[in-house]
């Protein structure tokens, strides 16, 4: 009951100025935690899709969902952790790539199905997508002082099967 489980909540909301701050405000005002948050307009330009990762026990998650639903701008939402869902995160990593490191880094990127997007004589910039754990694993596999910069998009997701969230 008191287990703090990770939840991936995906929200369809009105694409209006301030809509994002209403969500962010709700989390800070009520002391909920946001681990990551991604937002962009959908195919319907009047709607935005916002996906966030939060954690809490059953009661807290229930409150988060109710409070989000209460926001006037929120059209619909789904707790993707409660269904079979595909989760993806994008990561861009700039690494050192000199001497022997150069071949090693390329090999590692290939193993993780990454792409090298930019090359200099001393660095690689690698793109990786996948579940967050996969991205974590990549970072663990790379020597710590080889990492120059890490940019992550935060997790987004979609339900498997015929179920679709739309207005």
């Amino acid at each position: 009951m008191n287990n703090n489980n990770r939840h991936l909540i995906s929200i369809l909301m009105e694409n209006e100025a301030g809509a994002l701050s209403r969500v962010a405000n709700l989390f800070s005002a009520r002391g909920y935690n946001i681990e990551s948050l991604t937002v962009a307009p959908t195919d319907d330009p009047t709607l935005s899709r916002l996906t966030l990762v939060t954690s809490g026990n059953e009661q807290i998650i229930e409150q988060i969902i109710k409070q989000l639903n209460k926001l006037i701008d929120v059209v619909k939402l789904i707790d993707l952790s409660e269904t079979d869902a595909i989760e993806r995160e994008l990561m861009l990593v700039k690494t050192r790539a000199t001497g022997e490191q150069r071949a090693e880094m390329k090999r590692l990127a290939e193993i993780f199905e990454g792409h090298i997007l930019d090359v200099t004589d001393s660095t690689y910039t690698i793109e990786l997508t996948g579940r967050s754990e996969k991205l974590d694993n990549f970072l663990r596999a790379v020597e710590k002082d080889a990492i120059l910069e890490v940019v992550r998009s935060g997790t987004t997701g979609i339900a498997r099967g015929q179920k679709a969230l739309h207005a």
Partner: protein
Amino acid sequence: MEPITGAEILVRCLKEEGVEYLFGYPGGSVLHIYDELYKQEDVHHILVRHEQAAVHAADGYSRASGKPGVVLVTSGPGVTNAVTGIATAYMDSIPVVIFSGQVPTALIGNDAFQEVDTVGITRPCVKHNFLVKDVRQLAETVKKAFYIATTGRPGPVLVDLPKDVTITKAEYHYPKKVKLRSYNPTVKGHAGQIRKAVDLILSAKRPMIYTGGGVVLSDGSTELVELTQLLGYPITNTLMGLGSYPATDKQFVGMLGMHGTYEANMAMHECDVLIAIGARFDDRVTGKIDKFCPGARIVHVDIDPSSISKNVKVDIPIVGSVPNVLRAMINVIRDEKLKPDTHALEHWWRQIDEWRGLESLRYRPSTEVIKPQFVIEKLYQVTEGKAIITSDVGQHQMWAAQYYHFDRPRQWINSGGLGTMGFGLPAAMGAKFAFPDQDVACVTGDGSIQMMLQELATMKQYRTPVKIVNLNNGYLGMVRQWQEFFYQKRYSMTYFEALPNFVMLAEAYGHVGMRIEKPGDVEGALREAFAMKDRTVFLDFITDQSENVFPMIPSGGGQNEMLLAERDEMVSTHEEGMVLV
């Protein structure tokens, strides 16, 4: 259709909404709107003396009448002053629509004169807010604002109006209806849940009905009274729910919570089925949450799903409006000729009557010094229990709630959620606008009244005669009480070494002032004051400085751990309780 300015559009919209009174204060960014108001006579603008009072007055008007309150303030300080009023309305779910001026759209974000991020500042304390950037969206936005404020769980909605929008022209079209794809409150309760709830309710051996402000806001009093009397169960009201069930009825066991009656709190603690209606299990009601109603299965009716299982996990939740759900329950019980367990009920009532026998609201009378409770009792007698009573926040608020027996909803108006000192006087003025023919009294204290004193001028200007019942003990009494109990009588900053002469002050504003120092003069003064129908009278009652509010559940205590006046040794509360306020 001839295009008209944004200011004209706004005023027309207000007329369409049937707005009688607009409480406000002018300023640079709303000049075009004020100019339009000047040209018409349907919407009466009430010029307050501080923007906080504008919102409290609109709020009081709404609580008394059930109609939305409407406010107009200027940008910058106009709106920041209004924030306390907005937050007050938000915490008690009062439908208020606030129009605020804003700097012209071209200057937004430039730190312009009298600019603040109004939408940002008010976001956490409104149900919703809008910034209108295009005059063509103005009318529809106004319609949405009223719709959102007054439906579902009501609340304040703010519309921010940049100055250029009020002078730009557009064709006027006011939509008859608005539909929002993202907002569609559930009004009708789920039939299956209602059926389950009825079964549980009728199976109770020791039932308890606990109702809050939601019954008042949804005008569900008729259904509540009918259901309660059909069942024969005991009922308690929260501070916000007082009046929704007649306090003089024998099934009413008084208010519950921190300063509730012994019988109400004990019955809550011992009940086996709790029927919560339009109440939100606030911390002032529950006391220590894990000691709350330990043996009860709980039915909870509320229009706001987020109120359900927020603080206390409930067994049968029903989302819907109170009158709707209660009517459906009554129908099930009537149609199927269902009966409660009368034998168990008799037994339960005997127990409750025993608790009642303790007379937890008894206080030690005095012929020397005026007891504050005595003033409220006399106020109740003199007004025959019929006046609209507003209050500020503190000891006087609790005494008004305990000793004035409210028999009808919307008769008791106070800031329960936010606990805003200064609310009482402007709220009384607002209530008087709604019901000019009814007696309105503001029960206040020497601390609270000084927070909104300037409104005495507004009340003079508009001739809204209110009787101000000031329980003057020279202290911030409720804080002093806590310092006495929990801080070894270290009265830090709770004694006013200087108070104004309230009689002269009232007279300076053109009202009548009276100072009452002897218990024997209390009733006479009240009669004299209420006989002056067309005058605001400031009754300054000099009361016992050491009087405390009892019963009391010290924070951290359970509902069965009450302290009764003069019977219990006051013990310092434990550390865990000190953290809770």
